[in-house]
Structure formats: structure tokens, C-alpha cells
């Protein structure tokens, strides 16, 4: 376990040693801010309309959901930016020999890099909390909803990191890792949406929809944490970490 922490801490610090860390957080917050501003404006507009013409006003929880759904979209670019260098960079410069010859197992290495990426992005999530918290100015958003939404987004983020790590371990150029990861995450995002287009019968379509991440996030965004959804994410993360493990091991025997 100490090995995992050692590797995780080193990678975490290394990410912030160059401009990469600051720039990643910068772009994340800028993008979130832009969208938040436009969402908040729309919210206020709808509220005004509702007052003038009657009808139901927008709910704060809807604004929150919109915000968190939007985070999913922004992560499409932020996650690859963090995971692209996990394995790819070290392979190219042969620094991976250090971990290959240290008395640590491949699982330690994979878990360590996963923890580092989750840590970096967890920090980003923490920084993004300023936006939902700002909503307290407009009324009484449900803190339970905010917390469960963050739990969902955190699990989503970990799943995306697991995919990013796997792809990074397969290629040796950071740029390729970035492209492939962004593409894979995009496919994952729209999976539920395109399910009817890529499947034939109703059963298969339901199955594909069930595999999609968005299906399982809805509950989290509505303030509900279910065992099914938790298990889904845990299995998803474990599966891709396992793939990463296999990929790193396999490369030794090529």
C-alpha cells in the first residue's frame, strides 16, 4: 500500500510541477464559469417570465442538474489532459524502467497512477464547488442534492480516468492518448442517446442504455444514491483498471 501512495504522491506533485496543473484547472474553471453564467442568466429570465406570465417557474434543482450535466461535457477534455501523460510520457522517455525494476507490482503502479489522476481531478472538483455554493445566494438549493450530485460526478470522473489510463497505457504518444481518450469519452457520453440507432430490438436497446453512464447518473443528480448505481460505477472502474493492468504487463512480454 505504501508503494501505491508513494507513486501517487509523486505523480500528483509532478503534474503541478509544470504549468500543466495550473492550466488544466484554469480551463476547467473558466469553462464551468462560462456555462454557469449562461445557465444562471437563463434561470433568472425564466423566473421573470414565470412572474410576468404565470406558470411554473424554474426550480433551483433543475439549474443544479444542468450544471452537473454540463460538467460531464467539460470533463471530455479535462480528463484526457490529465491521463494522457500517465503512461505514455514515461514510455517514450524510458523512465518507466524505474518502476519496472522497483520491487512494486503492476497493480501498485496502476493504482498509484489512478489515485494521482483522481487526486488532481478531485482537486478540480473541489475548486468547482464555488459554483453550486454560489446558488445559495439565489435561494435554498438542496444541499443533499448537491452532495449526491458531486458523488455521482466523482464516480463518473473515476470511470473516465480508468478509461483514460487504459488508453494511455496502450499508446506511446501523449497526443494520441488525448485524442483517443476524448473520443472514447464522447462515445460514452452519447451512448444512451444513440442506443436506438445502433441496436435492433427493444431488449438490446435497453441493455445498451443500461450500460451507459448517463443512465446511472440521473439518480445521483436527483439526490438519490442507489446500490445499483454504485455497483455499476465500481464494476466499470475495476474493469478498466484491470484492462490497464493487463496492457502494462503484456507490453513486457512483447
Amino acid at each position, binding site marked *: 500500500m*505504501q508503494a501505491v501512495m508513494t507513486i501517487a504522491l509523486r505523480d500528483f506533485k*509532478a503534474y503541478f510541477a509544470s504549468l500543466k496543473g495550473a492550466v488544466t484547472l484554469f480551463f476547467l474553471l473558466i469553462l464551468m464559469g462560462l456555462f454557469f453564467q449562461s445557465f444562471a442568466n437563463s434561470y433568472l429570465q425564466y423566473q421573470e417570465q414565470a412572474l410576468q406570465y404565470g406558470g411554473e417557474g424554474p426550480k433551483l434543482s433543475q439549474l443544479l442538474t444542468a450544471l452537473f450535466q454540463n460538467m460531464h461535457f467539460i470533463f471530455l477534455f479535462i480528463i484526457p489532459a490529465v491521463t494522457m501523460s500517465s503512461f505514455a510520457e514515461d514510455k517514450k522517455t*524510458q*523512465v518507466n524502467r*524505474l*518502476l519496472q525494476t522497483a*520491487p*512494486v507490482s503492476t497493480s501498485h503502479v496502476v493504482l498509484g497512477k489512478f489515485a494521482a489522476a483522481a487526486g488532481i481531478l478531485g482537486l478540480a472538483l473541489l475548486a468547482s464547488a464555488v459554483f453550486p455554493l454560489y446558488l445559495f445566494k439565489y435561494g435554498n438549493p438542496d444541499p443533499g442534492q448537491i452532495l449526491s450530485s458531486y458523488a455521482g460526478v466523482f464516480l463518473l470522473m473515476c470511470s473516465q480516468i480508468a478509461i483514460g489510463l487504459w488508453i494511455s497505457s496502450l499508446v506511446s504518444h501523449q497526443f494520441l492518448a488525448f485524442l483517443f481518450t476524448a473520443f472514447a469519452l464522447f462515445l460514452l457520453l452519447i451512448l444512451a442517446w444513440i442506443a436506438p440507432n445502433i441496436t435492433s430490438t427493444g431488449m438490446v436497446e435497453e441493455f445498451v442504455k443500461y450500460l451507459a453512464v448517463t443512465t446511472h447518473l440521473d439518480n445521483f443528480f436527483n439526490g438519490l444514491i442507489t446500490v445499483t448505481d454504485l455497483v455499476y460505477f465500481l464494476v466499470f472502474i475495476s474493469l478498466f483498471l484491470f484492462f490497464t493492468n493487463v496492457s502494462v504487463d503484456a507490453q513486457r512480454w512483447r
Partner: protein
Amino acid sequence: MIEVVGLRKSFGNVCALNDITFQVNKGQIVGFLGANGAGKTTTMDILCGCIGADAGSAKIAGFEISSQPIEAKKRMGYLPDEPPLHKEMKVEEYLAYVGRLHGLSGKDLRQRVDDIMDRLELSDMRSRLIGNLSKGYKQRVGLAQALVHDPEVLILDEPTEGLDPNQILQIRQLIRSLKGQHTILFSSHILSEVESICDELVIIDKGRIVESGSHRDLVARLESGRQYQLRVRQGAHALVERLRVYSSLSDVNLEQEAEQLITFRTKDQEQDLDRVAREVLDGGYGLQELALRSKKLEDVFFQLTR
């Protein structure tokens, strides 16, 4: 301490290693010698667990690297030809990281890091970013990371590559000082270096071990005949024809017409040098130089790897 038996490795269609077998006993320094591309780095990579072999076994301190990697790696320090340095870390930070990977912690770790930096004269550079160091210092940091956890076995891949003469001397002295406490396998294609530091040699060529043993043994065993060079004032062409008559001289060649330089090989230097000198003097060719061209080990190497 290091036992390699029957290693084989192919990269696609290219056979890099074909039945490599050798061993290094405790406390020995063994030189691993071969031309570029012979298979030295591949062998060392397999020995250290970076690559997997197609067949055969590689053991460090009795632990097979493919089945008991953690135990083997605990007892080993590796300096690859490209030191695996994290350029964005400081020297002290990096060495502490490596130490921690090997299970050191707390005061023990700090002590070891300080010790190794002292030994390799890196203390002045402790807060410098590795990316900002010169090649010589980078190589020393590479050596430090192999030594920080005080391993029983050291595997060094061309440790003096790219260093200036002063630095080369320092590294060689350091390696010599490690003898006895550590078991060392180090690879090089600089024959003089291997001659001066190592107890025994293993010579590899095109993926096979061609010879192994102490260099005295190797030379005695092969008796290839040493190469001499003869420089005369004029008439080298004719002289070559005259010398070719002698059966004990071999490889008589006019090396450079302009320089009037002749090279030849002989096993029987007692007799032949006198004969050649007499030939030159009697024929009036004008003796300018008669000297040994190559050192013993080079002869062995050339003969084995041509």
C-alpha cells in the same frame, strides 16, 4: 548471485538473444562486452524485469525474475543506458522517491540519501532540478538511484557512456570501490575499461556468448597473434612481398602507401620481430617504426566478433 541460463529473445523475426548462459559469483565484477547491437542491453533488460524472455531463466540472488520479481528486484539496482530520471524532480527528492519505492522510510531513508549523495559527490546539486544537470551529473544521479537502497547486485549498462575523461575515471574508481560488497555486472564496449576493472569477462556477439573467463585466460586460449605496425622510409611495396615469404607472419598488408605503413600479425614475437627488423635493415628500406598495434584484448575481440 546472477545466474542466466539459456535465455532466448526474438523481436518479431529478429533473433536478439540465442541461448545466453553465464553467471556472476558473489563479490565479483564481471564485464559484459560486445559490439553495439550484440544483445547486451536486451540481456540486462531481461535480467532486471523490464522485458520478458522467450525462454530460459534469469536469477538474481537465487530468485527467478519472472516468477519472483519482487524478491529479485529488492536485491538489485539497475542503471540502464538511459538513466530513468524524472526531469522535473530535484535530485534529493528523486533519490528519496527511489528509496521509498524500495521500502526505505523516515530517518533511515534520509541517512541513505545523504550518504549516497556524499559518495557520488552530488551534495552540491541536491536541490537542483534533474533536467538542469549536465550529462555527467545525470549519469551520477542514475548511479545513485541504483545504489541508494544498497543492493547486493548491481547491473550497469555502459555507465561511462558520454562522459568526459575525468568523469570516466571517477566512475571507474567508484565501481572498483564497490567490489566485494556488491556483485556487479557491467557492460561496455570500451575494452580498456573492462580490462582495468573486471575480474572476468563475458563476450557476446550477435546474440550469442562467444567467450567467457578472465582476460588472461581468454588471451591465452585464443592466441590469435598480435598485430604490429612497421613504418619504413621507402619501398614498402617490395618489402611486403619479401615479408609474405615468412610463414610465421600472417596478414601482411600495406596499410597506407603514402605513409609507407605495413601491418602484420605474428604469434612468435621473439623470433619474428628480429627477423623483420633484420629484413628492413639489410634491404635498406629505412626503419622508422616497429611497434605493437593493438592490445591483447582487442585482438581477442576482433577475432571473436569479425
